[in-house]
Each structure stands twice: as structure tokens, then as C-alpha cells.
């Protein structure tokens, strides 16, 4: 089953990742990525740029409106994701717990929808 791990950032995690301990944290990330690649569980994943680079699009009465931002500091925001194909949700949760961001913000582990299905 494929799971997406939603990885969040907050002020503290960003500060730590960009500070002195950042290299150690990135080495931990590298080690987990290597393990997931070698085990054949890694499907994909990316880090997201800072939320200030976001464009927000909305339809206002059917008319598209595109704005820069959000610039308002949210307490936490999506910082990246990982997609893994694991034997169990327990295994996906174990990966999430080891991800360094778990020390700063909760991660979410969500199954992906599948286009297969069994008749009932």
C-alpha cells in the first residue's frame, strides 16, 4: 500500500534545519532516504520551497484571482512529502517517526487512493 507522509515545518524546525545542527539533520534524512531506496519502498518525495513563494489562486464569482503568498506567518506549513510503498501502516508510521521533523511538528501518514477495487 502506498502512503504519503506529510511533513510540516514551523519556525523552530526551519531555524534548526538552517542552523548549526542542519547538517546533522540532513544527514539523518539522507540515511533514511538511502534505506528506503535500497529496500524498494521509496516511490518519491520532494521538499517544498518557503511558503512566501506560493501563488494562491481562487475563483471569485467564476473569475480567476491570483495572489502572491500567503505571507502571513502560519504556525506551521507543509514543508514536503514522501511517498512510500510499505507492507503496513505500522511500517509507514515508523518511517515518519524517524523523520527529523517529527521532533518539531506532527507528521501525517495517509494512504493513497487506488484505482483497483473488489466487487462486493
Amino acid at each position, binding site marked *: 500500500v*502506498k502512503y504519503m507522509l506529510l511533513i510540516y515545518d514551523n519556525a523552530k524546525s526551519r531555524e534548526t534545519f538552517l542552523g548549526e545542527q542542519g547538517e546533522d539533520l540532513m544527514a539523518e534524512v539522507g540515511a533514511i532516504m538511502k534505506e528506503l*531506496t535500497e*529496500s*524498494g*519502498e521509496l516511490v518519491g518525495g520532494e521538499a517544498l520551497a518557503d511558503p512566501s513563494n506560493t501563488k494562491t489562486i481562487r475563483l471569485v464569482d467564476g473569475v480567476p484571482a491570483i495572489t502572491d503568498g500567503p505571507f502571513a506567518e502560519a504556525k506551521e506549513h507543509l514543508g514536503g512529502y514522501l511517498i512510500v510503498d510499505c*507492507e503496513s501502516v505500522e511500517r509507514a508510521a515508523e518511517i515518519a517517526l524517524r523523520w527529523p521533523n517529527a521532533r518539531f511538528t506532527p507528521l501525517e501518514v495517509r*494512504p493513497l487512493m487506488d484505482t*483497483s477495487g*473488489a466487487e462486493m
Partner: protein
Amino acid sequence: VRAGTDNVDLLRRLAPQVLGVLVRRHGQFDTCEDAVQEALLAAAVQWPREGVPDNPHAWLVTVASRRMTDQLRSDHARRRREDTAAAQVPADEAFAPAPGDAQPPDQDDTLTLLILCCHPALSPASQLALTLRAVGGLTTAQIASAFLVPEATMAQRISRAKQRIKATAIPFAMPPEPERSERLRVVLHVLYLIFNEGYIATSGPDLQRSELTREAIRLTRAVHALLPDDGEVAGLLALMLLTDARRPARTHPDGTLIALAEQDRGLWNRAYVEEGTALITDALARTPLGPYQLQAAIAAVHDEAPSAQDTDWPQILALYELLERVSDNPMVTLNHAVAVAMVEGPRAGLQLLTTLETDDRVAAHHRLDAVRAHLLEMAGDHAAARAGYRSAARRTTSLPEQRYLEARAARLTG
């Protein structure tokens, strides 16, 4: 370049035999397996252009052996560069087939290979992938696309499985009893998983996944031919045929699921129904009973009914009672409850379901909600049924199941 279907079938049939010859000769399962894949690829390119050789088996063994020799020589050269000690380069492999290559070997190595690929030291995902590549002759790209993962991910699963076989020195040999029987059960389970992975595919980008169903049936047929007196092998083959027979009727062209009771039985594959029914009838008559045989027998009772109304539910109920005795699986209890409801009424079925509410394996599973909703609908409690279908729709991770369950809920509105 595309090989014709005949070539593909021939290559896949020969793949395990060629691999068996190489592993017997050289050991080194991992290197041999790569060499056979390269030979299969070379054949897929050359045969459609230049014609199938007179002795395709010998051709593949010769080409794979040459790759193997090249590989060994380059490993050897590397080692020699690293270590200045003089060493002898292995003699060049003769271009002509070596004695014994001209004919397929007396023994068929398919079963030994399956048992190796399904070794319990490998993860289930690796067992499936390696079986399809080493025994099925599928390419890594084909397996990756069937399982909807990137090719690099699948390549890694296969290479890890091969490393593990090498590191743990798993022998290429048929284990003695009773281990042999236990290992065969794992092989059958892997074949069942491959089948199911293909069967549940619906439409669109998943279409190539139905390849897995065909491949699982083909490999199970091969095992049945080697072990005709094993009732569970026959049972599994029958179960696959009797299930796959319904595939043309199980979805609308857009991929929407159709419940068994509402399927157009005219679309069922009669040849598969007949073959599966004959297999299971024979197995039940002369081999000890097992779970695959019981599941096949249940499928046969469904498939033989001219209409859903004519289904022999008392017989299905009796078979589920037997199946529950030999397998501790909450999914069996779920289906058992449906059979109870059909024979004794929905309240009796709902009563049986309550035993699952404290079973962690299934208590939060969408299928428990879905079956409960179905039985509540039968009992005329439409409000509770609707809530159950909605709850199941939220819990499933399958888009077609979600659509089906929402439609069932909507049908009860108003």
C-alpha cells in the same frame, strides 16, 4: 521492437528452464538471472527480425552463458587489477551449444525456482517481484508498471532480493519434507497475491495489470502440471479460473464495479468455468481438503448458478462453515455472514458480524461496514444501511469501491 505474442509466450515458458540450466552449471543465482534477462531481451529483438531459431532453448542457453562468461571475466579482471596475484582467465565459452544444451533438461526447474524466489527470508514485495522476473520472464519495467511504482523502485526490490539470496546462501535445491510442503504453501500464496493484484485492477492506466492475472494462471498451471496430485495446487488454479471467469462482467466500461448478484452472467468466460469446475470436482474427490479447494468450490457454486436467485446458498453456507474451521481469517467470517443471511435471514448474519467488532484485524475495515450495511438493507433498516455504506465509502482507499458504496447509499435515499 515488439515480439509477437507467440514469441512472448515461448520466451516466458523457456525462461525458468534456461535459468535452471545456468544456475546448475555456475551457481550464482543473481548473475545467472541477469544473464537470462539479457538473453530474453536479445531474443525479443532478434527473433521477430530473423526468425525463431530451430532450437530456441539451446539458443537462449548459449547466449545467456556467453553473457555469464563475459560477466565472470570482467569480474575476474577487476579482481585481478585489485589483487596483483596471477589468475587464470576462464576459457572462452564455445559458440556452439555445449553438450546438454541442445535439449531442454529432463527435470523442470520451475518449481525449484519458485521455491527459491518465495523464500521466507525475502519480503512479500520482493517475493512477488522476483517470481515475476526470474520465473515469469517479465522485465523489471513490466513488473514496475503492473505494480504502479517507478522502475527504479522495482529494480531495487529485485536486486535486494537477489542480494539476500546470495548473502544467506539460500541453495538452489528442492528442500526435503516437511519444509518442502511449507515452502510450497508460500509459493501458492505468492501466486494468489499476483493473481489478485491483477484481478482487482479496473480500467484506465491499470489495464496492463491484468497481465498479472494471466501470468499467475500460467505459473499455477505449470505448478499443477508438475504436481498433479496436490489438491491445493489444483484448488488454487480452479479458484483463479473460476474467479477470472467473471472478470468481463465485474465492471462497466468506465471501471465502475458491478456486484456479483447484478453481473450479466452471459459475459462470464464459460471455458474457464468449465475447466475450473472440472479441476475442483476432481481435487475434492481424491485429495485432502484445504482452503484453496474450499474457496474454489464456493466460486464454482456461484459460477454454476444460471442467475443470482438460483444460487445454492445452503451449499455455500456449508462450505463456509468448513472453510472457517481450517482458516482463521476475518474476511472468511465476513463472507460467511452473507451466506448465513441468505439462508437464515439478515438478522442471523448480523448476529455473526458482531463477533468481528472486537477483532482488531477487521473492526475498522471498510468491508465490515459494507457487509453490515448490505445485511441491514436486506433487513429493511435503510437509515442504518445508508450510514453503513457511507462509513465504508469513507474508509476504503479504492476509488471504484468508494463510488460503488456511495451509489448504494444514494439508492436508499428518499
